[in-house]
């Protein structure tokens, strides 16, 4: 099936520091936008579309344009957690195809590490009165415990083991050690061991919320970045080869009476994205999956269709994931586990997909043609969103 090529990613930038004291999230956003435009060979004044996830001190589409000093003709403030940037790419495909804008940007800036934000272990339920807070706040659930409850159920239903989940952390760290910015990140964030890790290392790290160990949990960093989305006409004249957005899907899922906690919103968003792209999971070279925790990746590998529900343990044992192994390659930048997680990692999934499809990754897969970026926002096991974006090399 012929892929429609209606919008492309033309420029990217990943803010290089993971500990950036004295810098504001807004400065990270503006700096990243400028560098992503330079990467594309485009100018500040070319921007006519602005997507934002309400991050930083910005005020979304209302406040960010004013800070940047631009007057876009399309404003979209979609905030659905860490998958917001997959939703932005999805909307950019739709909006550019409809002629609503030609050069659109999404930016991200966070100083979560410098501000010591306890994202994973801070506890939920401090948001005041709401129907959901009132039912959950008394129990001391943390962000991590939501994911951990998914892991327990997955282990119970399918026999998935901690050793299998740990291999996700091992492969991701292998990629991180090849990425100088990831190595600097782990050094600056004072990781105990800045080196490749083994399954035993993961199992010997302390448990944060059963059954998840420290080395199955993503870091909390500062950081940010930007991506520039353009029309096919603009894509012809940019500095580097465009990377085409050929399919996108969006979905949400939540706690339901009798619901299956081991299946995520990805099971709804991914088929929609693959259908639009006209490709199948077995054609994908690179999977950039939001690795908030090991279990997140395990569930998404199934929900994206790389293996059947319940079979991810065997899929991992079969020897995929690392860039120098055959088959599907995972999170070649080092992921949120070992390179960059300032709170909403979704943007970096797009950025590393672009690097792979341009041939610029530090763990490059030769001849990579197709990538999937899948973001998960909110709480796996609780209310969450899934955003799937299929990307193709020029």
């Amino acid at each position: 099936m012929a892929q429609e090529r209606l919008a492309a990613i033309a420029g990217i930038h990943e803010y290089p520091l993971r500990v950036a004291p004295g810098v504001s999230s807004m400065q990270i956003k503006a700096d990243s936008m400028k560098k992503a435009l330079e990467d594309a060979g485009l100018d500040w004044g070319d921007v006519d579309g602005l997507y934002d996830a309400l991050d930083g001190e910005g005020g979304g589409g209302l406040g960010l344009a004013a800070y940047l000093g631009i007057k876009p003709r399309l404003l979209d403030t979609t905030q659905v957690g860490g998958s917001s940037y997959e939703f932005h790419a999805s909307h950019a495909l739709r909006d550019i195809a409809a002629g609503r804008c030609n050069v659109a940007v999404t930016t991200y800036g966070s100083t979560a590490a410098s501000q010591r934000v306890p994202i994973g272990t801070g506890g939920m339920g401090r948001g005041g009165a709401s129907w959901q807070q009132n039912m959950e706040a008394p129990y001391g659930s943390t962000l991590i415990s939501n994911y951990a409850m998914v892991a327990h159920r997955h282990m119970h239903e399918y026999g998935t083991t901690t050793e299998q989940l740990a291999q996700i952390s091992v492969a991701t760290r292998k990629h991180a050690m090849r990425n100088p910015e990831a190595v600097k990140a782990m050094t600056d964030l004072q990781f105990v061991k800045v080196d490749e890790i083994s399954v035993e290392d993961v199992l010997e790290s302390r448990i944060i919320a059963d059954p998840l160990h420290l080395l199955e949990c993503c870091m909390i960093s500062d950081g940010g970045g930007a991506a520039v989305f353009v029309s096919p006409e603009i894509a012809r004249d940019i500095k580097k080869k465009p990377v085409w957005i050929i399919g996108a899907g969006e979905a949400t899922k939540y706690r339901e009476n009798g619901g299956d906690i081991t299946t995520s919103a990805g099971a709804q968003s991914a088929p929609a994205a693959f259908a639009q792209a006209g490709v199948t999971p077995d054609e994908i070279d690179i999977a950039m999956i939001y690795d908030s925790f090991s279990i997140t990746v395990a569930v998404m590998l199934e929900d994206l269709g790389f293996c059947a529900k319940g079979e991810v343990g065997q899929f991992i044992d079969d020897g995929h994931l690392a860039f120098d192994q055959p088959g599907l390659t995972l999170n070649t930048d080092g992921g949120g586990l070992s390179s960059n997680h300032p709170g909403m990692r979704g943007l970096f999934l797009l950025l590393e997909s672009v690097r792979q499809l341009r041939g610029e990754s530090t763990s490059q897969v030769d001849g990579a043609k197709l990538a999937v970026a899948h973001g998960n926002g909110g709480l796996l096991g609780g209310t969450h969103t899934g955003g799937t974006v299929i990307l193709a090399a020029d």
Partner: protein
Amino acid sequence: MANRPQPSFPEPDTQHFWEGCKEGELRYQTDSDGNVVFYPRGHSTVTGDRDLSWNVSSGLGSVYTYSVVRQNRMPGFQELGAYAVAYIDLDEGFRMMSTIVGVDNPTTGISIGQRVQVEFEEQDGEGAYPIPVFRPV
């Protein structure tokens, strides 16, 4: 622990549920077609109609899944040792987040599928709402 975070009011969807806890009742809603609605709301999540009635659960159910939290930096929880957070599937067909009490070591004493019974844990402070928790049976 007897000083868990309390529900906040006014909050019209969940007020009747929490008043039930003061009566020793675990309350849930059904719509006129018999669909179970939980957490409490003003409308049926199946039809959108506002034709809900309240029922009292037997309080018996099974552990659907759980985690034992070892690290929570939130005041009130950070001083605790390991404690369980769980989803309980009540026999009437609704799933709620809760905790499991009466287990010496939560890391070894809880299992998925375990049968549990609700009880209402009294909280410090005058007029505080008792919190529904579950104990293995």
